[in-house]
């Protein structure tokens, strides 16, 4: 077990707590950089998709896990990012600028949706974002001149300064680079006053307010930042899919994104990565299961969402802290061995906190 002796206040907000973290993260990044040498094109593509989910997950985690606002409409932000990016690319903007502008536009939409949220909490907010997502989906279907409607829209190959980024290895490095950048940005945001304010709002709005935090501004900023990250992921997703159609951005996608952050573990950036890996592996796992199962079960329509739902239920009942929480427990067990107490992470049952009187 490692004891961290803090001698300066700065130690509380350091990105890397101790040398061990430096070592292990360097090993991780090194192996990810070397992965294209070993892995085949298929796995590189899957990994790139995992990175894209992770970028979107960072956005959603900042909102759900750190600010405590639930959004059932993040697929809409992905869609806005994807379509805006494609529009800019086809109108001759270079890739980084197009991505940036798509992200900024999505952030603007996020702020727009975030503005009225100062009056809403919990369920109302979730439903407002859901309504927003449905409206965006309809707009995509009917605004044919920009989005191509149901016919869809072909995304040009990713390229920058004459360099082709559409190949699986180049795209892998592109996504990896952007993911690491986004992670560093998010982590730095979380130790800045804005991020601290977000966490304070999550833990108690009343106490945050009495500390002088402007609730409305913090929530709006959180929404904008979250949408910005998700829009960035949307731009990359557009290249990954190669073809945009409105039915790719349905309610199911919003729920998959939420599933990702819940299963990964709310309130930690590790959780985002775990969740993204989980979300990336799940379709493969289900496809493999299909081969094994008897056809009567394997051919069930809606089997995939059904399994998603079942996993969500099991996690929420048995492991509300997600995969990251489970990992913490396992690590703790070995650190404390043989003194680990089962009750260390026992859930505190509490009385219902009514939302009716606020």
């Amino acid at each position, binding site marked *: 077990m490692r004891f961290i002796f803090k001698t300066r206040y700065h130690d509380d907000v350091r990105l890397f707590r101790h040398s061990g973290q430096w070592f292990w993260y360097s090993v991780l990044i090194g192996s990810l950089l070397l992965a294209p040498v070993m892995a085949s094109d298929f796995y590189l593509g899957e990994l790139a998709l995992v990175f894209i989910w992770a970028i979107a997950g960072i956005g959603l985690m900042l909102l*759900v896990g750190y600010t405590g606002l*639930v959004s059932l409409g993040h697929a809409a932000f992905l869609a806005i990012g994807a379509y805006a990016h494609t529009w800019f690319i086809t109108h001759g903007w270079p890739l980084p600028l197009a991505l940036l502008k798509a992200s900024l536009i999505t952030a603007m939409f996020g702020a727009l949706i975030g503005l*009225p949220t100062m*009056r*809403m909490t*919990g*369920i*109302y907010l*979730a*439903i*407002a974002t*859901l*309504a*927003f997502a*449905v*409206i965006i989906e*309809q707009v995509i*279907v*009917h605004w044919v001149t920009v989005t191509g409607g149901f016919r869809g829209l072909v995304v040009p190959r990713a390229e920058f300064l004459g360099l082709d980024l559409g190949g699986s290895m180049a795209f892998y490095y592109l996504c990896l680079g952007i993911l690491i950048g986004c992670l560093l940005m998010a982590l730095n945001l979380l130790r800045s006053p804005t991020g601290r304010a977000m966490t304070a709002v999550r833990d108690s709005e009343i106490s945050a307010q009495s500390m002088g935090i402007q609730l409305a501004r913090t929530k709006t900023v959180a929404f904008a930042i979250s949408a910005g990250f998700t829009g960035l992921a949307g731009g990359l997703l557009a290249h990954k899919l190669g073809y945009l159609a409105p039915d790719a951005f349905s*309610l199911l996608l919003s*729920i998959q994104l*939420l599933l990702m952050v*819940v299963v990964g573990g709310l309130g930690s950036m590790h959780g985002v990565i775990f969740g993204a890996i989980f979300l990336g592996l799940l379709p493969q796992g289900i496809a493999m299961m299909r081969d094994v199962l008897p056809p009567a*079960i394997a051919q*069930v*329509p*809606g*089997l995939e*969402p*059904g*399994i*998603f*739902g*079942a*996993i*969500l*239920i099991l996690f*929420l*009942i048995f492991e*509300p802290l997600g995969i990251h929480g489970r990992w913490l427990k396992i690590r703790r067990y070995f650190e404390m061995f043989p003194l680990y107490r089962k009750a260390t992470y026992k859930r505190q*049952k*509490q*009385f*219902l906190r*009514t*939302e*009716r*009187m*606020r």
Partner: protein
Amino acid sequence: MEVLQLLVSGISQGCVYGLIALGFVLIYKATEMVNFAQGDLMMMGAFIAYSYVNLMGMPFLVGFLGTIVSMAVVGALLERVIVRPMIGEPPFAVLMITIGLGFVLRAIAGAVWGAEPKTISSPFAGDVLRFNGVTLGYENLAIIAGTILLCLALFGFFQFTRLGLAMQAASQNQLAAYYCGIPVKRIYAFVWALSAAIAATTGILVAPITLIDPMMGFVGVKAFAAAIVGGFGSLQGAMAGGLLIGIVEQFAGRYLPTGFADTSAYALLLLMLLVRPEGLFATIQRKKV
């Protein structure tokens, strides 16, 4: 005349939204949990009725009652297995768990009954009623009549029976109700059973109009909008919100370009949340210090 016709069809559609919204509101009022799977419970009810009436050949009325009883049992079971462990967890977690439940129910329905749309042989189907140039199908009439009857029954239940009063008490203050000797946990199970029974009734009433398939529960999302427009946590608000959304949708479909019919419910919802977030019939109050 056209306006009247649209109004009538809007009311009949609105009754459907209102009935599903009623189920949402019942559970929310009593347990402060949001059951996102309400639309899927309705779908299950319709499928069970289909099995009883069409596959087993029961008379319609017997099948109807059987469905209500079966769904009440299903509702109570769901409460016991899935919802009760979540008491005291943040509302967001409960919302997520019911979303997951909706997906599971849809997969189960797909596995048992298949994805092809089914019809129920209902005595209401077929004929239309005409007066003054307004036509109204018997099945729509059945929905309106069923809604009125159900609302009256619910009103009586909540006002005059011990169980109904206990439910009201539990919904107003859990802890106080518990101190008064009301078995709050059992009341929760009853509330879920009641809500599932209402969902089953809705399913049977809707079945002649929209075919039964595993995806029919998506109408629940619109009903949810109805519940919020009406002010979450108020039974008459749920009905009013449902009717409002049903009528607005019909008029939007007739007088506005395509695409507006599907989004009008949500646009109305967003507007409502902006202007009057507590809904038509407010139950949320700000605590005065």
